[in-house]
């Protein structure tokens, strides 16, 4: 399956899809050292975001989530890419600052709510995100 979207931040990333069953606040919801979901009320509590293509309908919660994003990149436990159902200005900020500090970077793309609906059952599939200045694409192969 192929989904096109709008690039939020350019780059390329590969990994297995992790589709969040419910929105998640990175602050208070993701451990910055391990990259695991740390909110016990989240249905995917304990799951590691590291190296995954993280698919989320939208980001929610604290505006400190950008700081957690930065730490995930610094600690090498960040997702390989983030695919959003609506553009988020908080997580990408952590990625921009990571670039300013010379850390690794990851792409973020916005596939819209329709796009999200199309991949919401894609958990575990292999994903490949490519985001340029104007176009972004997510390829998913289920295997």
């Amino acid at each position, binding site marked *: 399956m192929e989904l096109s979207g709008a690039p939020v*931040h350019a780059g390329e990333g590969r990994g297995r899809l992790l589709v969040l069953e419910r929105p998640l606040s990175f602050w*208070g919801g993701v451990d910055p050292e391990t990259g695991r979901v740390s909110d016990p009320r989240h249905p995917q509590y304990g799951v590691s975001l590291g190296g995954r293509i993280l698919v989320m309908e939208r980001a929610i919660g604290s505006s*400190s989530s950008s700081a957690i994003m*930065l*730490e995930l990149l610094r600690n090498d436990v960040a997702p390989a890419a983030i695919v959003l159902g609506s553009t988020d200005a*908080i997580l990408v900020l952590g990625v921009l*600052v990571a670039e300013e500090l010379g850390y690794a970077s990851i792409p973020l793309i916005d596939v819209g709510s329709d796009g999200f609906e199309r991949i919401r059952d894609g958990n575990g599939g292999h994903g490949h995100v490519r985001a340029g200045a104007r176009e972004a694409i997510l390829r998913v192969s289920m295997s």
Partner: protein
Amino acid sequence: MTTLDAMHAVTATPESTPTLSGDERAVLEGERGPAPQLAMRVVVRMARILGARELVPVASAHIDGCLYHGDGGVEFAERLVSLGGKVGVPTTLNVGALDLLNPRRVRSAGHRREMALRQMRAYEALGCRPTWTCAPYQAGHRPAGGQDVAWGESNAVVFANSVLGARTNRYGDFMDICCALAGRAPRTGLHLEENRRATVVVDTRAINPALKERDVFYPVLGTWLGATVDERVAVVTGLPETATEDQLKAMGAASASSGAVGLFHVEGVTPEAPDLAAALGGKMPEAILTPRARELRRVRDALSTTGTFEIDAVALGSPHFSRDEFSLLEALLPREPFRIPFYVCTGRAEYERLETSGRLRRFEEVGVEIVADTCVVVAPILPARGSVLMTNSGKFAHYTPATTGYDVVYGSLEDCVRSAATGRVIRDEGLWN
């Protein structure tokens, strides 16, 4: 914006947006030094991502990025310091990860403590005022209605927009300090008049008026609001005109915890809602919602994660306790000391006022532990061996389980005081039935 600029903006390619003034371009090109340049680069890149066509000058900033989450945040702040950065507008600081007035309050040692302190000092070195509070609006930082500002910390953002009528988006860690250094923010979102109009009406007229007089109602309504309207701007009708600033503060904080609320209006109470029509900008609402008592009761119940009667501590003050809230608490204090640890989080300005006025002793006599500069969900303060916290804060109730491992019991201020006096949960259920 001049007419020429406006025309340019319309024909600009995405890569060239936002349209920058000569001054802004000079900053971006490094003519004012490397720190403003880095900050402006981040602001402009974010403006592009957000689709802003231009930047807006900001009158002040409130920085949430001074709280330690890891070494990357320290590195970024120290990078700005080493580049000679100084904020260009009056700027206050949100909580840090340490209580600087009482170093033993937070159980933090070694690397973590050192880095948390370095981060706080770096933001001071950037010229920010060391207010260390999540309620800067009750510590003298009150922008005027209509003023554009760049604030971080979700509760402060929703308060600035809703209660003060100032204009800010929810600026995340790093964006806040970049806006403060650049003196600019992307002109988008809640900086724009048209995005500040309510599109949803929340009608609370059917709710028991006696309940709406009580503080305990507001975090519940806020939690419901955040979970229901999320980013949409709501106007709430049917709240008493006597709704206090602290009630609105508690409601906003809860709404920004359960959802992405950046602005709400309260008819007849908040500055952009003298009446319903004004709040709606003369348009029809997209939705009219009428939360029922039963629904709110469920929301209130869900703020607690346990039904136990055994509690290990009480914590108040998220957002940071105000002068009025201290007065309410003082009037309720028991004669005998509390049987369990009782924390009240506040800003140092409020703490110092209590100290100077001699009122501090009254609180300390019964065992109230006043936490300044930080709070119990962002730093290890709660007893290491405990497992259940009681609070009157919707925001604490929301974040405590994930950040401290504690279960939560939600109750009113009165419930919290009575429960701490006996060591067992006592809650007034009357108004909720």
